């Protein structure tokens, strides 16, 4: 099963999700469900979405990422989108994509730093 390959790890009160390089539409939707359920069950406060292995971000994937971040916000959490490749950032901008107001970080390490610095202070 493709969706098995998407790892969702809980680190204290943070959920770390590593996106696979070329997820299909279905596994993206399954992932979204899984994230929201896990957040609810374990009272997770934040989500780090590691997209560093993503080579193509089209408007479908972008919409799901933004939607997920928004749902997490509705549930009282924060999302950091981490590790976007330079070529993906350039392409996404030209395509016209924005990530709504989601927080971004260069990589997972820095995202974790942001989380522990700021989420605790309720930023």
């Amino acid at each position, binding site marked *: 099963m493709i969706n098995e390959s998407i790892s969702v790890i809980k680190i204290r009160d943070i959920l770390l999700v590593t996106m696979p390089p070329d997820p299909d539409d279905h596994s993206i939707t399954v992932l979204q469900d899984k994230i929201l359920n896990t957040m609810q069950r374990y009272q997770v406060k934040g989500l780090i979405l590691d997209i560093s292995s993503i080579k193509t971000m089209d408007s479908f994937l972008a919409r799901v990422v933004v939607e997920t971040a928004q749902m997490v916000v509705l549930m009282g959490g924060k999302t950091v989108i981490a590790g976007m490749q330079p070529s993906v950032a350039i392409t996404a901008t030209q395509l*016209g994509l924005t990530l709504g107001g989601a927080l971004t970080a260069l990589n997972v390490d820095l995202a974790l730093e942001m989380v522990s610095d700021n989420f605790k202070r309720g930023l």
Partner: protein
Amino acid sequence: MNEDTRGEVVINNESDIIVVRKKVREAATLLNFSLTDVTRIVTAASELARNVFLYAGSGVMKWQTLKSSNTVGIMLSFKDSGPGITDLELVMNDGYSTSRGLGLGLPGSRRLMDDMEITSQVGKGTTIVVKKWRRCY
């Protein structure tokens, strides 16, 4: 660069969008496009393939390499026998969508590629051809 200079992918279901991305990535990489240009081309292909699947149900993507006197390029065509597009100007507006989409697929793909041509007949189908040339250094 003499073999495999054209090919096609039949689009029948969602997972074929991934096949389109894979084939186009291989072809563009073989043509020595920069990583950023490969990403641009694959992203446009993904948008247009998804449109074929979403709006027409099925169709076919053909790709081929292009040669000019001083550079090379890639041409992708997406052909379907779906409902067609009524207003070609309208669908090129950022944000216009008849589904729950972001409405960036068509206008965004034009921005990512060097050239885009749409032919569409309502009730008959749609063909979209995009091209990208490699920069010469």
